[in-house]
């Protein structure tokens, strides 16, 4: 009798605490994005500036460094410079870099890529459909996607060269 009472009371209090804790967690942790670590990366198939189709699903087997950018975003431009330098090294190790531009005019994007000779795939997200699917609200936004198509990490904001390198290292298949 006494034991049952304790169990029931404890259970009710635990349920209340759990409900409260969960509410607080979701309300006060702005950190978690619409798509975040552990989620499956939403699939897309878009043509890049060269006319090749970039289909995320077909990149399974390689790690994907998916970066959302705009020509007017200074941190994105810095990041592009680092990525340019390491693009080839990591392609050999099985890491693809995919850049998604957030619906800017093609001319602006094309001219930017030409001027800075950006070597990796660049797609323009017409209608912001990919950005919406990934819950991108501010730039730069990067999603590290492993060889099985799962998001390993979501990175928002400017990053140093060392941080970009570290992120790329995480994506090398078999490293995780």
């Amino acid at each position, binding site marked *: 009798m006494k034991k049952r009472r304790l169990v029931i009371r404890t259970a009710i209090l635990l349920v209340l605490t759990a409900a409260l804790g969960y509410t607080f967690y979701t309300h006060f942790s702005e950190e978690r994005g619409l798509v975040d670590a552990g989620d499956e990366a939403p699939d897309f198939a878009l043509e890049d500036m060269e006319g090749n189709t970039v289909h995320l699903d077909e990149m399974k087997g390689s790690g994907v460094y998916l970066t959302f950018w705009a020509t007017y975003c200074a941190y994105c431009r810095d990041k592009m410079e680092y990525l340019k330098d390491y693009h080839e090294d990591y392609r050999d190790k099985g890491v693809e870099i995919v850049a998604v531009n957030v619906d800017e005019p093609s001319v*602006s994007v094309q001219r930017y890529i030409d001027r800075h000779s950006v070597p990796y795939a660049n797609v323009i997200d017409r209608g912001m*459909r990919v950005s919406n699917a990934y819950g991108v609200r501010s730039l730069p936004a990067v999603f590290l996607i492993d060889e099985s198509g799962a998001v390993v990490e979501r990175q928002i904001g400017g990053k140093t060269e060392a941080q970009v390198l570290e992120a790329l290292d995480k994506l090398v298949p078999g490293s995780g």
Partner: protein
Amino acid sequence: MKKVICECGHENPYGTELCESCGKPLKDQGKGLVNMRYEGAARRSQTYSRTIVDKIWNFFSSVKVGVWIIVLTLIASSLGTVFPQEMFIPPGERASVYYQQEYGTAGQLFYQLGFHNLYSSWWYMLLVAGLATSLIIASIDRFFPLYRALKNQRVTRHPGFMKRQRLYHTERAGEDAHDRLKKAGDALREKRYRVREENGNLLAEKGRFSRWGPYVNHIGLIIFLIGATLRLFPEMYLDDHIWVREGQTVEVKGTGGEYSVRNEEFLIEFYDDEDERFINNPQQASAVAKTYQTTVTLFQQTSETIGSGVEPDEVEQFPIRVNNPLTFDGFSLYQVDFKLNELSEFTFAVEPEEGTDDELYSETIDVNLYDPETVYEMDNGFTVEILEYFPNYVFENNEPGTLNRIPDNPRFIVEITPPGEEEGEMSMVGIQVNNPLSEESDYRLRMVDFDTNHVSALAVRRDRTIPILIAGGIIFMIGLVQGAYWHHRRIWIQERDGELLLAGHANKNWNALKKDFSWLSEKTGLPEPADQAEKEETDGTRDEGVKSNHGDAGSDKQ
């Protein structure tokens, strides 16, 4: 813990004050009336406080604590309404500055104490959570013992219980006592009492369900609070907005790419200068929108892969006006804002620096400002190549750039190549800007026309908590009516050892019970019991025991 066995043989839980079955006082309650609150059942919280769990439980079970939480919540809630919450201050204003500017020191204090975001602050949420916990635990702690006591009560009550009811009478039972009791039973049935008889004793009961009113009410309140809390989850409550240009298709946020809308047409009508509402300042009338409407086509995409080439299905076309939203699949699109005349297209002509009206230069090109072509070949042999395009031009860090992708201040760097020539000349073109960048320039682009678009802002809302809130509200009201408009009345009549005993109890509205007794007396000749509470009051003989009982005698608050 030991059970308490009453002399009638019933096993009561530890802490019981009045036997659940016969009503015999098990604890010394002093003289005077018996305390009928919760039928004298053992309120668990009041009896055990062994472990930390019990202590927490007892804390929230206390009505005193509950009242304090309610008072604190009310005070906090009202403080938050002194000045507007942050979400209601004019858009673009910084809260840190706004409150002080607008409301002075008090405003500054309001901001610094965090009252500008009060209803989502952690401590306010804790208060509301405390209120919910208190409601749940206090209800559990009172409902079950009360339910048990009312379910287990038996017809034959202990004389000690009868004697100490507020309405009580005893006299020598006459010869006809048995018949009168029988008649009383029939009469009370007529009054729609539920009558139980046992060994010549009688219990008539009416309106017991009204005692559940407070608990039903609390269930409604808890459902309401749950509904309100669920608003914090985007799955349940979504409030966002999208900007849609005329002719453009935009995905509806929150639908996971399933739905999109195309703005077919945006209409706006302003007030007339002669409108009587603007009689004092007619120049204002033409700035106030009378109606505005966006005609949209709704599309549904079936493919999950973005860009797979699967064409979306057209669902419907609908004119969205203020207060007339487009509703689909739980989502609603409301007309909330607009931007008139956003630049959408420039029309250029090439002309020589030295002006001429030659027909050769009447040729024009249309440049889409959202997505211009790279090269424009003109029929007159000129080629215009766009070298750079900045939709919202800005000159930063000694470099031309753009602020964003909205063509509010479009600027181009173009190269004009005349027919038959290899080398072109560069110039920068924009609104009221036409600067040659090459050393020699013979030609320039002249803007001959431009086109604009209206942009409409639609709010995206999905509120799945409404049915929960309504259900909670309805249950709340049912409980309130149940507890307030009905009351629980009981009449006990006994014939015991040649004595006739009458007692009555009501959880409120004692007058109705007294009326029932006098009606019964008229019908059957049974005596009317006296109100012992009143008698004691007039006699001035109230002792401590009576005082505490008398306080509840009018109504048993649950």
